[in-house]
């Protein structure tokens, strides 16, 4: 017979083992109290699925790191993922479900701009903080509401504008742009055309390709022969065809310098057969996929936590290439939430307004494990974060970082002051 006064030998061993295990984990701080629930609007299916898969992995890694460090204000954190099918209508329903049915304190994680646009009005109605990881200029343009913020990734306007000085100085000043004929492509067309003019360059041709196009050969003769730089931002499965056909068009003859955005090749191996034509060309990257020689001190820890090797692929499958230039935004957004909740003394949904005000009060966000992509500056008025950008060159089928911009290069004048809007 065993009881508390006369424990069994097995019971004593188990209790002793548990004690030893606890003593062996001095760095683990147990979070206490009711969990903080963060809803994650995830592109698990639909056109954003490749991004969604890596957004989920990165957010899970950040969640583990935050909980291992004691959670938020000592409370454990939960992430609730809900698929929005990369669809604006479903996106709005997901914000509703995460907030009203699952009782989340806030919602985050949306990437595709049209899903953000479709979901943000509902977040505003529910008065729930909605933190997007989208790159869209929609937040800083003033098109949304006081409850929508983008603290984890710079927007497309800043990204594009910072590329122009380097392109003009290093690749050429006569630029032809090839872009998909919808909002993403139009942003590039408008912002880059203005930015390159400021550098004394010019866009000599703008070639808009309808999104339904599957072959591009008939567009290439429209590229003027005096073109020095071909700026391309085709996305989706068509990008492989686009690059292959472009290579066939120029053959081994003279060709303009190529400059593109890595959005074209996120989750795609740059050494994929058919992409040889990209050798020597340059790409914008937010966060260099291939670990640079001068990477920051937290880069290795971040890659290890997310499960990404030095080439930007999954450690368990080298063919599973990450969406490295975007997914850090979920990590940094979670740490932004932690910082603002602790600053606001957040206790529950009744403090949501106080939480947004605390977010708006944040400005400098220094480099650290909380921000592995780099230091940032948050603009509380426009609800948009600013940071540095990188340019990489394809060398031997790998992206090698060759330039990093400053934060200041991407800063532009405020188009809105959300802090003057009512909640």
């Amino acid at each position, binding site marked *: 017979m065993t009881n508390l006064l006369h424990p069994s030998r097995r019971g004593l061993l188990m209790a002793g083992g548990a004690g030893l295990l606890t003593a062996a984990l001095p760095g683990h701080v147990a979070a206490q109290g009711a969990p903080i629930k963060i809803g994650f609007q995830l592109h698990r299916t639909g056109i954003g699925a490749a991004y969604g898969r890596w957004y989920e992995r990165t957010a899970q890694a950040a969640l583990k790191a935050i909980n291992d460090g004691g959670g938020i204000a000592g409370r454990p954190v939960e992430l609730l993922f809900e698929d929005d099918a990369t669809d604006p*209508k479903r996106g709005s329903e997901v914000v509703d479900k995460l907030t009203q*049915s699952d009782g989340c304190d806030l919602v985050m994680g949306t990437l595709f701009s049209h899903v953000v*646009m*479709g979901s943000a*009005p509902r977040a505003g*109605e529910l008065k729930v903080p909605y933190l997007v990881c989208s790159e869209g200029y929609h937040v800083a343009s003033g098109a949304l509401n006081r409850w929508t913020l983008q603290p984890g990734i710079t927007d497309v306007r800043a990204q594009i504008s910072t590329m122009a000085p380097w392109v003009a100085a290093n690749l050429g000043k006569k630029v032809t742009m090839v872009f998909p004929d919808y909002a*993403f492509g139009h942003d590039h067309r408008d912002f880059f055309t203005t930015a390159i003019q400021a550098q004394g360059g010019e866009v000599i041709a703008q070639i808009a390709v309808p999104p339904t196009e599957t072959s591009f050969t008939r567009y290439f003769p429209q590229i003027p022969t005096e073109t020095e730089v071909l700026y391309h931002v085709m996305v989706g499965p068509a990008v492989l065809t686009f690059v292959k056909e472009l290579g066939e068009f120029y053959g081994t003859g003279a060709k303009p310098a190529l400059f593109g955005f890595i959005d074209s090749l996120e989750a795609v191996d740059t050494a994929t057969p058919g992409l040889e034509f990209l050798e020597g060309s340059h790409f914008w990257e937010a966060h260099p996929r291939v670990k640079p020689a001068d990477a920051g001190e937290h880069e290795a820890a971040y890659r290890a936590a997310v499960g990404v090797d030095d080439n930007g692929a999954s450690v368990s499958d080298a063919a599973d290439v990450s969406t490295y230039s975007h997914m850090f935004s979920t990590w940094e957004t979670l740490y932004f939430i932690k910082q603002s909740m602790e600053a606001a003394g957040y206790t529950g949904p009744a403090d949501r307004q106080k939480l947004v005000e605390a977010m708006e009060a944040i400005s400098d966000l220094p480099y650290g494990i909380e921000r592995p992509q780099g230091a940032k500056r948050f603009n509380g008025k426009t609800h948009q974060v600013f940071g540095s950008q990188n340019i990489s060159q394809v060398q031997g089928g790998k992206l090698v970082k060759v330039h990093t911009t400053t934060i200041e290069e991407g800063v532009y004048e405020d188009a809105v002051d959300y802090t003057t809007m009512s909640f």
Partner: protein
Amino acid sequence: MTGGGVKPWALHLALIAVLLTAQFWLSPYHATNLARIMVLAVFAMGYNLAFGYTGLLSLGHALLLAAGMYAAGLPAQLWGWGAGPAFIAGVAGGGLMAAALGLLALRTAGVSFMIVTLMFAQAGYLTLLYFAPVTGGDDGFAVAAASRRLLGFDLSTDTPRFLAALLIFAAGLLISLALIRSPFGRTMVAMRENEERSRMLGYNPFTVKLAALTISGLYSGAAGAAYALLFGYVGASFATIQYSILPMLYVLLGGAGTTLGPFLGALVMFTLIEVATGLTSAYLFFVGAALVALVLFAPKGILGTIRERWVRWLP
């Protein structure tokens, strides 16, 4: 189909009464979802009038939904129209687009009609992208709060939104019941059953089908406008093929050629996704399995099967 005396009217009014009370016994979350379902059901009712009753298998109804959505949303966005005029513009936009579509597409029939309507819808989608500076392109735009007010009520708040959705749904449901019990409704069914025999009896199939498609467009336009004004978003994704297939699925699931089928189909599909997402990330598997089961065991849809086996008077 037109039998049953007052029973069909009583049944439909009872459903509307139950829905009216639903806002009191449902949580705000489920009540908002029910408002969404009612708006989608109006779209499906429109599809049902064309497909279920007139036999016009369209793959272009997303164009009509988007026509209503933009006809309501753009005046609100550009000129600050209020919800009332914007909604009327949306209904008219859907009807006019359907009439224009019908004038061209109804020269064809069957599979050709499907392909032509699909092509027009795709052209409409690309047009929305092309004129992005005005339409917002694929990003779309959020409808301003000032345009979401009707008679002093804020349509972005729970109760006014629910009641507005119910009002539109109830009007759509009762009009469709009256329509299919009218002589014109029987003519629509005659077109579906045997167009050549109808022609021999003196009806002009083109004008009957054009009228049916236009009415279907009015419903689709109303749904698009309602979505824009009640949920505050207008976007080109609503003009994609997915939104042409959705009402077809709702109608097939609930029962094509039944007045309550579109609502039941939308309700079941929405609920199925809602429940399945809570169980697994592979929720689309459940949706697919449900559709396969439907084809195997109830090819006439839920209410179509019930009418065939048990309740013959179901309209």
